């Protein structure tokens, strides 16, 4: 939130409803340089639609009572931009080779359950399973 903007709006008699950040809730704070196409997935659309439904329920009573409602948003954002959004169908991430910076670690959860049963299908049915390396 931008403090001078909040002060100005309060001074003009506006109440504020902060909209949740769909990107933070979906991908966390360590996301980097996403573009519209990367967010544009079925699950992300579902996530945004659910937020929009909840927010509209909060706003509706004010609208019905004649309040002046103004939506403030970022000028540019991959999925929340009011005027512009970053877009590139070929974009895959940071603009350099990341292979040197990545480290592999064992995944603890995989070893915590043992493989039991005669077949993979049965093991999956019983919830007792382990991951095999590809």
């Amino acid at each position, binding site marked *: 939130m931008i403090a001078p903007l909040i002060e100005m709006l309060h001074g003009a008699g506006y109440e504020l409803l902060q909209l949740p950040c769909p990107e933070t809730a979906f991908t966390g704070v360590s996301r980097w340089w996403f573009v519209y196409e990367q967010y544009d997935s079925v699950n992300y659309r579902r996530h945004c639609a659910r937020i929009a439904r909840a927010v509209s*329920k909060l706003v509706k009573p004010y609208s019905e009572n004649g309040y002046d409602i103004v939506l403030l948003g970022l000028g540019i954002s991959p999925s929340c931009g009011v005027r512009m959004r970053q877009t590139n169908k070929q974009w895959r991430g940071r603009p350099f080779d990341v292979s040197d910076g990545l480290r592999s670690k064992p995944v603890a959860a995989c070893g915590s359950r043992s493989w039991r049963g005669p077949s993979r299908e049965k093991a999956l049915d019983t919830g007792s399973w382990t991951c095999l390396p590809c």
Partner: protein
Amino acid sequence: MKDLRQRKMVVVSGDRLGSDLVKGYVDEGFGVAQIPDLKELSGNSADYYLSLIADQVQEFIKDGQQVVVLKDKEDRWCRRFLSKLRRRGLAAEVKSVSE
């Protein structure tokens, strides 16, 4: 590219957004997250909305950032939000609005 995101977050009840207390946090470089008055929502929707805010707080904490929740005993949504954080085992710093 300079990362402009704030590295500290304060969570407040909706009607305290413009208070001097919150302004003080903003001056110290805190980002602000609001717990709005959710009385217009059904139980499930209100719970979902609080979860959404808790999701963001969880991501901030996971990232090692300082999160302060300004506890307002009179605000039931704030109380419910705090119990949600507790159930998730999230270590946010809780301060009373009267402090």
